[in-house]
């Protein structure tokens, strides 16, 4: 691949992270829980997007980011209060920035007119003058000699790349678009020429320069004229000198204080700065001159020799000026130092790598095979009659433990916090709120809840749909809310939590709740239910999941096309999840969906039914019991129930439901699994015997075949045969229809 393309891909990946940081920061500002770091993080995010975009010549993006950045800078410098209005504009701007990034990525065009409007709004915010003579931009250093890898991308966009490459020069941070304000009338010119002794005593120039920057804006220039030819160069010698023009009205002693520890080891002169030399102002802009300066010590030799000399000399420079990592303390107030702190923080706090998802998936598949293989091996060894205490068996036990640990670790690679889905929601809420004219506050909880990546990817659509529903249908209009004595602002809550080995996502609103009589009427009108049907409140609420049901009086472009909740339910069921709703009139509704944490493995109970082996998900089983003849009763013509501690639950013969046998066996010879479905309904499933409990790797039936009613998926057991995994809820729902085992699809041709 074209290297530039690759860098571009990395840039866009980073953009996504930066945009997420940006939004998170703005949300924190809005919630009033922001500190200085938050504002800085927000600023940096926009700045980095701009820097990268500049390198790739994405003009629209750069322009917009620049305006945004300027406004943020005003906020950062305290010239602009981050009040509600400002934050709202900024949130819109961050949405726009995301759109522009997407457009730059080549996915559709951004609404440039809208970008223009928002840019103007931003600019209008920023142009609140603090006085006729705006104070100089005290926080922008002219030059910063800290050679930090983090700046490479930025610097590469600023410095003419070929030149930088040719010299192998350590990139400097040069802010081109905002030249530092000319030094005020008063200040100091400091000339510093360290002696070799100073370096020998482990002193360094960088902290000194940083110390000066704390006093005021500095204009630093490096004189490398003293660097000798390579042959004459002493590796421990000192050849460089610095000139700093400090534009701050401070006492000489204060300046001298900075050099307290190096006194005697360097030649130091501190002179008052009378009139700022015109050249000095131009200096940060004149890269050629700077580079020429760096070139200066090299005697005129043939070009290849120059190159060789430069290669040798230049690396020596950063050795002298590079700050030791500890020096990058966040205490330093200058932005450069803060950036330093961040750069080093980023490298130490989170050592992460990007890995192609395909590789992870391959690894997971292989580990799945390993687990099956290990189970097969264990079974073969058991069959061969080797004693449990033999070395082989002990070794196998260890292997089993290791395999399990490997599997857990591999699954953990894929586990991700649901944050990546949740952070897309605030924007959605803003957009829907704007188009419905409702005031909505989004509350999120449990963003750190981890779940497998495959689940995360497929959470986004259902959550989006439920949020839309909550705002569009759940919340009342502002007028109606006031009438009902509720606050104007509606609250939509999105929460994620772990509950008994599953992830539960709740979307709740404080709206009017489900209008049951209306839901019922609509269901009757559309012929979805029998007008005479006696339904509980819960059953009425769940009517909204029926295909073709839509309560919206008018079809809006947000929701209400009638493809709503049934699609959501289907996509969640496809993931092995359930969705239910609970609603209190006048108080609001809560949608609860529960999903497996991973789609790859499952703890199951292996049971036999007739000649078949089945796996029942352990999460569904409450207890197992041996039925006694006295406990089993017949209810109605064929239905049977079993008494479990004085409560009667329906008894379902798995073999009959799945169409494997027609004769109901004697329950006393089998075992009952007491299961609970998502709605809390209980049933006893009759099987012939329990073989054991085992973690199984889930294999999709749909990959090569199709969905089978009553079966969630398949797995491969220790003997290499395929076993089916029972879909407990579906089996309970199917019990009435078990009489007809042949599917309607049979032999349709």
């Amino acid at each position, binding site marked *: 691949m074209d290297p530039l393309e690759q860098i571009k891909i990395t840039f866009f990946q980073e953009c996504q992270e930066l945009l997420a940081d940006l939004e998170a920061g703005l949300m924190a500002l809005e919630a009033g829980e922001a500190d200085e770091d938050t504002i800085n993080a927000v600023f940096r995010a926009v700045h980095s997007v701009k820097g990268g975009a500049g390198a790739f010549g994405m003009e629209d993006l750069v322009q917009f980011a620049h305006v945004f950045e300027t406004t943020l800078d005003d906020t950062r410098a305290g010239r602009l209060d981050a009040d509600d209005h400002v934050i709202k504009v900024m949130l819109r701007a961050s949405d726009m920035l995301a759109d522009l990034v997407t457009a730059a990525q080549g996915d559709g065009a951004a609404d440039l007119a809208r970008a223009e409007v928002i840019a103007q709004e931003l600019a209008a915010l920023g142009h609140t003058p603090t006085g006729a003579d705006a104070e100089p931009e005290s926080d922008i250093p002219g030059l910063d000699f800290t050679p930090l890898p983090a700046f490479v991308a930025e610097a590469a966009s600023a410095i003419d790349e070929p030149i930088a490459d040719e010299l192998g020069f350590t990139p400097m941070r040069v802010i081109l678009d905002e030249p530092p304000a000319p030094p005020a009338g008063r200040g100091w010119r400091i000339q510093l020429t360290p002696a070799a002794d100073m370096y020998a005593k482990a002193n360094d120039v960088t902290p000194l320069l940083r110390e000066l920057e704390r006093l005021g804006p500095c204009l630093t220039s490096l004189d490398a004229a003293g660097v000798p030819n390579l042959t004459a160069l002493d590796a421990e010698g000192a050849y460089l000198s610095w000139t700093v023009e400090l534009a701050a009205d401070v006492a000489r002693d204060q300046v001298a204080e900075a050099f307290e520890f190096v006194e005697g080891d360097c030649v130091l002169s501190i002179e008052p700065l009378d009139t700022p030399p015109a050249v000095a102002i131009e200096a940060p802009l004149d890269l050629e001159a700077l580079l020429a300066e760096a070139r200066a010590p090299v005697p005129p030799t043939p070009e290849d020799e120059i190159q060789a000399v430069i290669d040798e000399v230049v690396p020596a420079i950063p050795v002298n000026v590079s700050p030791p990592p500890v020096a990058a303390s966040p205490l330093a107030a200058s932005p450069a130092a803060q950036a330093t702190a961040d750069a080093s923080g980023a490298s130490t706090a989170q050592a992460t790598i990007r890995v192609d998802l395909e590789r992870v998936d391959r690894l997971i598949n292989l580990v799945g095979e390993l687990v099956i293989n290990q189970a097969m091996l264990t079974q073969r060894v058991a069959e061969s009659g080797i004693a449990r205490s033999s070395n082989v068996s002990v070794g196998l036990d260890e292997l089993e433990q290791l395999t399990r640990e490997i599997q857990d670790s591999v699954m953990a690679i894929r586990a991700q916090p649901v944050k990546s889905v949740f952070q897309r929601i605030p924007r959605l809420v803003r957009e829907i709120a704007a188009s419905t004219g409702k005031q909505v506050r989004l509350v999120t909880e449990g963003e750190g809840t981890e779940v497998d990546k495959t689940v995360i990817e497929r959470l986004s659509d259902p959550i989006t749909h439920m949020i839309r529903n909550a705002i569009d249908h759940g919340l009342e209009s502002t007028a109606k809310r006031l009438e009902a004595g509720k606050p104007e602002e509606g609250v939509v809550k999105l929460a994620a939590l772990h509950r008994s080995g599953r992830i539960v996502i709740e979307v709740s609103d404080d709206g009017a709740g489900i209008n049951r009589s209306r839901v019922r009427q609509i269901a009757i009108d559309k012929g979805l239910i029998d007008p005479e049907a006696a339904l509980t409140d819960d059953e009425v609420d769940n009517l909204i999941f029926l295909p073709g049901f839509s309560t919206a009086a008018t079809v809006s472009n947000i929701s209400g096309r009638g493809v709503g909740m049934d699609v959501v339910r289907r996509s969640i069921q496809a993931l092995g999840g359930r969705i239910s709703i609970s609603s209190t009139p006048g108080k609001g509704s809560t949608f609860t969906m529960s999903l497996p944490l991973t789609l790859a493995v499952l703890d199951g109970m292996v049971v036999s039914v007739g000649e078949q082996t089945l796996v029942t998900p352990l999460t569904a089983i409450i207890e197992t019991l041996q039925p006694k003849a006295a406990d089993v009763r017949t209810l109605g013509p064929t239905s049977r129930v079993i008494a479990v501690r004085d409560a009667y639950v329906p008894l379902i013969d798995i073999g009959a439901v*799945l169409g494997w046998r027609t004769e109901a066996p004697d329950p006393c010879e089998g075992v009952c699994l007491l299961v609970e479905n998502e709605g809390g309904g209980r049933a006893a499933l009759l099987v012939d015997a329990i073989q054991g409990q085992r973690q199984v790797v889930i*294999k*999709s039936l749909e990959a*090569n075949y199709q969905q089978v009613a009553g*079966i969630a998926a398949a797995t*491969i057991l220790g003997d290499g045969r*395929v076993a089916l995994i029972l879909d407990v809820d579906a089996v309970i729902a199917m019990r009435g229809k078990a009489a007809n085992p042949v*599917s309607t699809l049979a032999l349709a041709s």
Partner: protein
Amino acid sequence: MIEAVTNASEPRRELVSFRAGDQEYCVDIMAVREIRGWTPSTTLPQSPPYVCGVINLRGAVLPIIDFNCRLGRDPVEPSARHVIIVTHIGARLVGLLVDAVSDILTVTNDSIQPTPDVACDTVRSFVRGILAIDGRMISLVALDRILPELEAEAA
């Protein structure tokens, strides 16, 4: 290998011919991934009679279709003598349970005769053409409608 070439300039096709019941069929060789012996399958509930069940093919769950039964004839009692032809149908892998694999045929499109106009719907939907080789009648089978769901989509 049997050559049934009449015109050398025509593009050739290779077909795998097999026996199911008392008839011979063939499928395009590119659709065949492997041929393996019969292993006991796991019965699927609620499935049509021609779906024997699923087996483990190196970690993948492979549905097995009783080919003879799929074409509307009697289901076979699978035994170790039977053969499974693992075929690609779209993105899926499907095993066809047949009696035996006989030949690889190299033919041109010319030599494939159109399906005779018989009354049976099953023949019309699965048989794409007829090959006459050495007095044997071999039906060229279209695999894309073998699976029940795919059939439902096509209808």
